[in-house]
């Protein structure tokens, strides 16, 4: 097998590993899988990036990746964590957004663009209209900017009265 084929094969295995906290999406869907290489000597080296600095799922993700690659015949892979460039919710692809919405989690809008210089403070609700992932109504409101996982906020729909999660823009 040529090296490129082996790296591409390892990438396909790695990208299909499910996220431990939002198992409806894969690491590939979330955009946290950054690089797959082959080290001299043949060891597969996978680089992932956390969504948030303290993401408690990182250890499980590393273990799941190592197990998936081992099971697929790639031996003992090295899993690296890199903070740079920092993850942005813009890296969640179209397929990931569709799966999140199907599972009742409103996908993120465009991440705020960062210019250099101080970031202005935002007082009051974030000016954002989110469609309810259950009924589609735009009559929704944020109830808490922090949710059950580091990357989600809590919202509710005033039309169907259901609460839902929203992957935050970052």
């Amino acid at each position, binding site marked *: 097998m040529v090296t490129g084929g082996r790296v591409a094969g390892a990438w396909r295995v790695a990208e299909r590993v499910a996220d431990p906290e939002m198992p409806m999406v894969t690491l590939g869907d979330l955009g946290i899988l950054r690089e797959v290489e082959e080290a001299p000597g043949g060891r597969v080296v996978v680089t992932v990036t*956390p969504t*948030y*600095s*303290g*993401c*408690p799922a990182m250890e499980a993700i590393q273990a799941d990746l190592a197990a998936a690659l081992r099971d697929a015949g790639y031996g003992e892979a090295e899993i690296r964590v*890199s*903070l*740079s*460039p*920092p*993850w942005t919710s813009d890296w969640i692809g179209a397929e990931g957004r569709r799966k999140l919405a199907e599972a009742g989690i409103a996908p993120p809008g465009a991440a705020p663009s*960062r210019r250099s*210089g*101080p*970031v202005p*403070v*935002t*007082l*009051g609700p974030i000016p954002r209209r989110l469609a309810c992932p259950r009924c589609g109504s735009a009559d929704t409101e944020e*109830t*808490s*900017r*922090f*949710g*059950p996982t*580091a990357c989600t906020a*809590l919202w509710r729909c005033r039309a169907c009265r259901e609460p839902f999660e929203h992957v*935050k823009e*970052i």
Partner: protein
Amino acid sequence: MPAVPDEVRGVELGQYCLMLGDDALVMSHRLQEWVTHAPELEEEVALANIALDLLGQARVLLARAGAVDGSGRDEDALAFQREPGEYRNVRLAEVPNGDFAHTMGRLLVFATWRLALLGRLTGSRDPMLAAVAAKGVKELVYHRDYAAGWVVRLGDGTAYSRERMAEGLAALWPLVAELFVPCPAEQRLAAAGIAADPAAVRPEFDAVLAEVLTAATLGTPGPVSADAVPAGREGSHTPALADLLGDLQQVARAHPGATW
């Protein structure tokens, strides 16, 4: 592991990573103390999330400190085996929690200051500090906005909530001056393009605080003293840090080397 820029001594860079890491670790611990005590479930989730972000920042910074200072200590050794006098956090982070208003006031001050520092550190010549900063800036924007929202709600709320918010800020205010006083290591690293000079972030801090306190219909708690010393940065702490570390280090000290 990214290389240390040539002319910078690893020991000094390690000290600086400890300063920023200890700020995050100690502040995270105070926020964690709210878990099971917060006034509403949503606030508990928010405080725990913010504590987790800061803990994540602390872990990377402590690991970097131990790697560059030549001591070979890992993040656990640095968190669990140092005495209070070896901690380099600002004292604002360590004072005990008061009521919820006090916590929101402290979080507003801390997150505004740290966001301004990390905003500058995204351009650091140390690649690891630049990476931690670029990641942390995104998180701190959320922390600051959360705290600012509560300071406005409580300050511009009932007469009673307003009184509690004003009292919380007044209690914290004597610790604010220290945030803007660099210690010698910070000054040297800032001159080398590695660190952020805390004195330089004061205008940004003042502007954000003024905006939030105006919206909260609260006045500035008082002047920020110009002759403060960087006490925490030099290892001089309030007795509260020893109490906090007693809690934080209890299990690791009772069971050295334990894993689970």
